[in-house]
């Protein structure tokens, strides 16, 4: 017993070191297995406040750019308004719309903090649980995809940027149904790679890439980018496609968080299917 105490006393620095390091590793491990540590929710509240002060200050310098992009988007939205369509319907009667049920709503948000030069990049937004933001919601901007909500606090949320080694997004070639997964390789923030597109698919430079809609995170046909280069190694079954991203991550300011009303229903159904499958065989 005495020896143990002497041992502990002699090496207490080393033991403390091990305890602290194992605690850090434990947190890292938890984080990587998508078990959200409460730490990140707590820290969101603290750092979010600091970042929002700075973002307020910074946004002043970008007013002109923001105005331009808003004007563009307004023009686009105006052209999609009901009034800018010619009504081709001959019969005119009122229906209780049971065919079209709203599936997506969008929450406008402002970017408080963003990085593009790290291997794993994250974005902080000024919307949180109080505004109905939940984890695993998609985030887009006016010209492309941005990321997936990773953690929320009362008034802020952290987004896993597409420019992150943990992000994998289901995308497809626009006029083809061939789909693959979009991953960032960590070099150029304007270029991602699309993997797992089968070799029989015809790929050409300049073809548009859009989201596939196979996940519950992004709706279908949100622009992702266009094919910049593609190659097919001999003996390989899949194309390697370089995609030039349509989103400009270096000057993100206003984004939209996507709320999918059917998400829970779809996810729980898919989980059910996964549990059931082994029983069938």
């Amino acid at each position, binding site marked *: 017993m005495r020896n143990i105490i002497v041992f502990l006393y002699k090496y*207490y620095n080393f033991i403390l070191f091990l305890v*602290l390091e194992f605690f850090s590793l434990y947190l*890292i491990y938890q*984080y990587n297995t998508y078990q959200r540590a409460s730490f990140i929710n707590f*820290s969101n509240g603290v*750092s979010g406040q600091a970042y929002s002060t*700075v973002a307020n200050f910074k946004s002043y310098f970008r007013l002109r750019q923001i105005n331009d992009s808003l004007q563009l988007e307004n023009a686009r939205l105006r052209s999609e308004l009901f009034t800018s369509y010619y009504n081709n319907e001959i019969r005119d009667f009122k229906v209780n719309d049971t065919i079209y049920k709203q599936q997506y709503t969008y929450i406008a948000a402002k970017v408080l903090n963003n990085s*593009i030069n790290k*291997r794993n990049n994250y974005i902080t937004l000024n919307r949180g649980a109080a505004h109905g933001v939940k984890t695993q919601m998609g985030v887009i901007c006016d010209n492309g995809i941005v990321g997936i909500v990773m953690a929320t606090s009362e008034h802020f949320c952290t987004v896993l940027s597409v420019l992150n080694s943990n992000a994998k997004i289901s995308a497809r070639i626009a006029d083809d149904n061939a789909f693959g997964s979009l991953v960032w390789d*960590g070099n150029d923030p304007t270029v991602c790679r699309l993997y797992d597109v089968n070799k029989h698919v015809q790929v050409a430079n300049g073809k548009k890439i859009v989201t596939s809609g196979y996940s519950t995170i992004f709706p279908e046909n949100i622009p992702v980018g266009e094919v910049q280069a593609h190659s097919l190694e001999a003996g390989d079954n899949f194309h390697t496609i370089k995609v030039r991203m349509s989103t400009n991550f270096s000057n993100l300011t206003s984004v939209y968080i996507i709320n999918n009303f059917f998400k829970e229903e779809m996810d729980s159904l898919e989980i059910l299917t996964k549990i059931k499958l082994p029983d069938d065989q």
Partner: protein
Amino acid sequence: MINELLKHTLRLILLLFVQVLIVNNVNLSSYVNPYIYILLLMMLKVNVPKWQSLVIGFLLGAVMDMFSSTVGIHMFATTLLGYLRPRILSASLNKEDFDANIEPNIANKGFIWFFTYAASLIFVHHCSLFFLEIYSTKEFFATMQRVLYSSAVSLLMIILAQFLFFTVKPSDD
């Protein structure tokens, strides 16, 4: 003691301010992500007990994790620094330095000593940080490049900061 605490708290705020609001926003390349906040740990007095150095490292990492939306990676790297720092100091300083309880900066120990001290600590920190960030050895060479380029830039910034705040005595020894 209170004075020391106040001094280091101010340093912490200043370093965090520079790190989070300025350095993190400078996009030189995806291979260059300097981290200068570890200067706080590097410049603790030489006689700070080992356990304090560990705990300060741990807390510093926790604060940095908060500001970078990560969990544990900065904590791990700075705790490692907190463990290595007293060992590197006791291996490279002589008895008078410990008796005088000096602050290991460029003014007290000269350029060459500080350069080696800072370079070794920065390299260890960046190495553990970048490899934990990617969490695999798949991109080993790309990550190694990141470590080297970022370490070089961090070292440059830390040494420049030393020249900014301290006057270097002529190296006669």
